């Protein structure tokens, strides 16, 4: 009779709290539903619908090509500038979107946090995964552009999912830090657009990282998005600039961000329902 009865113990926790990944797995259906909700809601009642996913990176690419590529004459590793920047903008947009959504996720769902129990980590994760559909659409356009410029993908394309994962891990890691801070200090949500913009210029989207001499270039990889962006270009367009050490540095940095972000989040999780 008592064999498969679920027993819940409620106790106060203190200090660093375990991540409870198993519980997160149990709630995977909720994660799916929340992601599905975000995607659905974003496209309902919009005139352009799915086109928004493409408009943002595409028009940014056009502006960059005009001003950085043509007027400023920024080098582009031997490939046409438009596709050079667009291939970077696609994962960048995914990252920026994930960052913006996850940093606001707890405050936006305050009523859920106050009334229902679920592992709170589900919220920022769902915000980040919600950008997957947008990414897929923008990626299709990227493939179209590659066709137009006559560039064939290399075998390195198999690394693409991992690179996308790297972008996800980065945006989640930073998002966790920001959302935890946002619950306590509401000015964080105003910092995010500014932070994103600075970060865009600190990442080699509009220019190549080969502008930097070697020891600095690998160090530059500590910005995880450098690894993502250069990796994308290397995998899809075959730029021959040995990004491996950079990607390694980026992965390390991203992992650090994720783990520290998750731990900080979990540590303050017990205050969320009262403070949000």
């Amino acid at each position, binding site marked *: 009779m008592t064999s498969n009865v679920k027993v819940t113990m409620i106790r106060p926790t203190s200090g660093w709290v375990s991540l409870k990944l198993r519980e997160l797995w149990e709630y995977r259906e909720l994660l799916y539903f929340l992601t599905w909700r975000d995607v*659905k809601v974003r496209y309902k009642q919009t005139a352009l619908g799915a086109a928004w996913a493409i408009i943002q990176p595409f028009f940014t690419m056009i502006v960059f090509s005009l001003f950085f590529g043509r007027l400023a004459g920024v080098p582009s590793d031997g490939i046409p500038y438009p596709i050079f920047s667009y291939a970077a903008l696609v994962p960048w947009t995914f990252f920026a979107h994930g960052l913006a959504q996850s940093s606001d996720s707890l405050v936006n769902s305050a009523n859920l946090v106050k009334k*229902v129990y*679920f592992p709170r980590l589900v919220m920022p994760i769902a915000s980040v995964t919600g950008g997957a559909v947008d990414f897929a659409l923008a990626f299709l356009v990227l493939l179209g552009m590659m066709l137009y410029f006559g560039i064939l993908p290399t075998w390195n394309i198999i690394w693409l999912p991992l690179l996308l994962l790297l972008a996800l891990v980065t945006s989640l890691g930073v998002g966790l830090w920001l959302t935890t801070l946002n619950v306590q200090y509401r000015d964080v949500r105003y910092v995010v657009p500014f932070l994103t913009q600075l970060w865009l210029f600190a990442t080699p989207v509009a220019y190549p990282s080969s502008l930097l001499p070697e020891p600095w270039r690998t160090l530059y990889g500590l910005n995880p998005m450098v690894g993502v962006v250069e990796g994308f270009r290397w995998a899809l367009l075959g730029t021959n600039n040995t990004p491996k050490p950079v990607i390694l540095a980026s992965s390390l940095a991203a992992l650090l961000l994720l783990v520290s972000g998750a731990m900080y989040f979990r540590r303050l999780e017990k205050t969320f*329902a009262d403070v949000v």
Partner: protein
Amino acid sequence: MRDSLADIATAPLSRLMHFLRRQPVTGAGETIWALDGLSFEVKRGEVVGIIGRNGAGKSTLLKILSRITEPTQGYAEMHGRVGSLLEVGTGFHPELTGRENIYLNGAILGMRKVEIESKFDEIVAFSGVEKFIDTPVKHYSSGMYLRLAFAVAAHLEPEILLVDEVLAVGDLEFQKKCLGKMQDVGKHGRTVLFVSHNMQAVSSLCHRAILLDGGKIAADGVVEEVVSKYLRWGTNTTGEVKWQFDNAPANDVARLIRIRACDEQAVTRDSFDIRKPIGVEIEYQVVKPNIWFTPSIQVANELGVLLFNSAAQIDPDWENCYPEPGLYRSTCWIPGNFLAEGLLTVRVTLWGFSRPPHKGVVVHDAVMFHVYDNIEGDSVRGRTTGGYPGVVRPKLEWTTEMMDPPDRKTPSGLDLKSGLSVRTLF
């Protein structure tokens, strides 16, 4: 299977804010213990009502048991799947359709996708919004919204159900539906903790109630007694009052000694089953002889409406009585199935008519008692839940007969010409 709960919990919000603002926590700050030294155990299948004034800690208790807030001290142990209904319609998104929201809300409440799918039709049928299930909920009326939200929540089938005041919103029909569903839940052997301000709902649904006050348990026991205690909170009146010789209400004719409400076994009580007779017993001393004398009672309900007045002069042994000085005990018997449910107050007067002006020893609010209905079926309300009108609730006799029956037989061959006489007691 038991749920055993031992809780000392707190939500020191002010302290938290001090920490977050990095202000030093000096003694000037005040720590508020929302729950303090609370400890109780609920067995499987019990339906327990949690009542108390606003701010007593009821919602905090449920929040802790739902794992939304963490206790600062103490622990709670729950055996079984827990479902929490702290709010109806949590997570509903106005842009999504009813169908989509059912899935979303179900997932938020903890149902698996397959579970939602299998119960989908039942949920839609219960809510009564089949026609609009594919319209975005922002177009729903508030009634439809609530019904749909409750329909999803009602099909949550955890072993332990925590419900917080969801009956406070919604029209009468919605409340009736909620109560009905919750009765079903209780009957299926689930454990329920039900927080509410609706004493009638608590009395009819729960067997046991816990009264919270200032974060502590003020009472824990049979629901009628706990509800009774809550209802008469702030008054000093109970089922019995007695006086010392010196401060007893008196005049030159008589002096009161004791007044109490009791049942047929002469046990003093402050809560009574609606079907049982209630005795108001008055002990007094007659001082002056040759006075036309009678004790009387007046009974009023919670709203102050005077229900009736009754005096001992109707007692055949009392008629035209001029009692000798001495100690007396008069009891007035209020029959069962006469009073309505609620809190009733009794005023006692000892009338002595010697010459005008008539003099009487009066005690307002002498005793107070609570009348409840178990909804076991043989009282006037039978098994109906919800509000039942009337300041009194007598069990009257009804007779029904069919008038002027047509000259034909029914399909079963019954000859209706003979007429039907149905006698019912309602």
